[in-house]
C-alpha cells in the first residue's frame, strides 16, 4: 500500500486494530469486538475530525513503539502512559504532528490498561463482516483479517482525512477524563435481577470489589470479601448483552466486555452503564471499585448524549 503511515516496531503485550465494532452478526455468534474504552477511542477520532468508526490501534499495557512512514496528525488517548515522540515527551488526549521517520514510544505505568493510537483519516484494513475490529478468540478481523494481533514489522495504511481537525485539539479541561482512586461503577438492574434475593442485591452495592487478574477483552472477574448467596441457578443459554454482570455459582461477579460470547447461561444481576464499562476497561488487577445502582432512564440519557456528542450512527 502506497499510503502506509505507521510501522510497528514493538507491539507490546497486545496491540490490536479496532474500529467501533462488528454489528449486525450477533445472531450468527459473531461478537462485537471494538474498543474496550469506548470513550477514549471516540475522543481520539473526534479530536482528529475522523468518522466515529475510524480504525485505531488499541495498545494494552504500553511497551509499544512505532515509526511514522509519512507526515500525519495523530492522537493518543486513554491510559495516561508516558508518551515520547522521538526523544520529546508529548501529551495524551491531544492532536500532535508526526513527520516521516519519527518514532512514537508508549511507556507503561499503573494509571490504566489501554490507550488508543489514532491517525488522521483512520487506519485502513480489509473489513470482515463489515468491520476491521480484531477478535483474537474468534479469529476475525485485524490487518490479516484472521484475528491475529499486530506484530513487529506490520505496516498500516490510512484513509484520506475528510475533515479538518477540531480547532482546540484537546478535550475541554472541564471534562474529567482521569480515573478516580476508587471508581464508582453504575449498574442498571437487568436480566434476572428480580430473582436475586434482596440481600444479594444490597450486598453487590454494599461492599467494595477488587478487580482481579482474571480479565481480558472477553470479561473481567471481580472479587468481593463476601460472596453473593442464593444466586439463581444457571439457566438455558440466552443472549448476553455487552456490559452484563453475570453471577456464576461462586457468587463473584463477571462483567462481560467487548469480546464476550454471544450466549450465556449464568444469571445476570444487572448491566454496566456506558461510563462504567469504559472505566472498568482501564482498571488494573488489585484496584478497588464500588458498584452503585442506577435507574435505567439515567443510563439511557447518558447513552443518548454519547451518541449525539460523538455522532454515532448504527
Amino acid at each position, binding site marked *: 500500500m502506497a499510503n502506509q503511515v505507521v510501522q510497528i516496531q514493538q507491539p507490546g503485550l497486545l496491540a490490536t486494530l479496532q474500529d467501533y465494532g462488528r454489528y449486525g452478526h450477533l445472531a*450468527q455468534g459473531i461478537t462485537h469486538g471494538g474498543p474496550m474504552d469506548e470513550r477514549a477511542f471516540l475522543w481520539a477520532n473526534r479530536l482528529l475530525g475522523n468518522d466515529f468508526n475510524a480504525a485505531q490501534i488499541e495498545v494494552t499495557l504500553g511497551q509499544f513503539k512505532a515509526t511514522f512512514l509519512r507526515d500525519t496528525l495523530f492522537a493518543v488517548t486513554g491510559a495516561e502512559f508516558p508518551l515520547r515522540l522521538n526523544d520529546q515527551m508529548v501529551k495524551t488526549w491531544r492532536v500532535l504532528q508526526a513527520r516521516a521517520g519519527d518514532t512514537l514510544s508508549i511507556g507503561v505505568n499503573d494509571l490504566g490498561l489501554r490507550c488508543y493510537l489514532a491517525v488522521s483519516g483512520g487506519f485502513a484494513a480489509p473489513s470482515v463482516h463489515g468491520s476491521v475490529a480484531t477478535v483474537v478468540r474468534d*479469529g476475525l478481523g485485524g490487518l490479516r483479517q484472521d484475528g491475529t494481533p499486530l506484530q513487529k514489522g506490520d505496516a498500516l495504511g490510512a484513509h484520506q482525512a475528510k475533515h479538518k481537525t477540531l480547532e482546540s485539539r484537546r478535550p475541554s479541561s472541564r471534562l474529567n477524563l482521569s480515573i478516580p482512586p476508587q471508581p464508582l461503577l453504575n449498574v442498571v438492574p437487568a436480566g434476572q435481577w428480580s430473582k436475586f434475593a434482596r440481600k444479594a442485591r444490597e450486598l453487590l452495592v454494599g461492599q467494595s470489589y477488587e478487580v482481579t487478574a482474571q480479565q481480558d477483552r472477553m470479561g473481567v472477574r471481580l472479587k468481593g470479601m463476601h460472596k453473593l448467596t442464593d444466586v439463581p441457578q444457571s439457566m*438455558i443459554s440466552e443472549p448476553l448483552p*455487552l456490559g452484563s454482570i453475570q453471577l456464576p455459582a461462586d457468587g463473584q461477579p463477571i462483567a462481560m466486555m467487548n469480546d464476550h460470547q*454471544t450466549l450465556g447461561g449464568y444469571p445476570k444481576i444487572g*448491566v454496566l452503564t456506558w461510563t462504567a464499562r469504559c472505566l472498568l476497561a482501564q482498571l488494573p488487577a488489585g484496584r478497588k471499585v464500588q458498584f452503585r445502582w442506577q435507574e*435505567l*432512564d439515567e443510563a439511557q440519557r447518558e447513552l443518548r448524549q454519547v451518541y449525539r456528542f460523538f455522532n454515532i450512527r448504527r
Partner: protein
Amino acid sequence: MNWQFQTAAPDALMLVLEERIDIHVNRAIQRLARELADHAAVQEVVPSYHTLLIYYDVLEVNEKQLRHLLEPVVKALLAAPEDVTPQQSSLHTIAVCYHPEVAADIEAVAAATELSVAAVAELHSGTTYHVYALGFAPGFAYLGDVPEQLRLPRHSTPRQKVPKGSVAIAGQQTAIYPRTSPGGWQLIGRALQWPELQAGDRVRFKPMSLEEFRRMNDQESSNG
C-alpha cells in the same frame, strides 16, 4: 404462551417466553426474531432457545415506548398458529466419522450409556435435528434434540483444545465445533465439511468410515 419483557441493557430489551428447550417455543422465538428485526426502532435481534434480545435505537425510543410498540406485535404473533412447517426450513446432511480414532469420547460415551460404539453412531445419526440457536462462537450451532439414551452431562473440566469439526453432545444438545477451541462437550465424531447453519434449519448426520474420512481429509489438504 406466557411471555414477558426484561430490561437487558440501556439499549436492549429481552423477550422471554417459557423457559424450556422446546421446538415450539424456539420456533415462536425465531418467528418473532424475523418479525421484530424489521421494526423501525429495532437495530438488531439475537435469538436463543426461549429468549430474544432486541437492541434498539435509544435516540428514537426509550424502553417504555419500545415495550408499548412491540407488545401488540408479540401478542398477535403468539396467538397465530405456528407457520414454520418442517418442509419450509432447509435440510442439511453432514457426513460424520464416528470412529474412536477421531472421536475421543465415543468409547466412554458407549460405556456410560451401555451401548456399543456402532449403536451410539446409529442413534446420533438416526435423528433429524433442529437448529435452536447460534452462539458461543461464530457459526457454533446448537442442535437438538439428542435421543434420550445419549444424554450425558458435559465434562466437569473442559478440554483446552477441541479439534475443528468435532461433533459433540451435551444433554439434549449436539453441535459441530466450527474451529479449534476449548470445549466441555463429549466428542463422538468428526466432520470435514458443513454448511453455514441458520437458526430454524434442520440437520441430519450421515456416518462415514474412517477410510472415507481419511480420503476426504487428504483431498482437502491437497486442495488447500
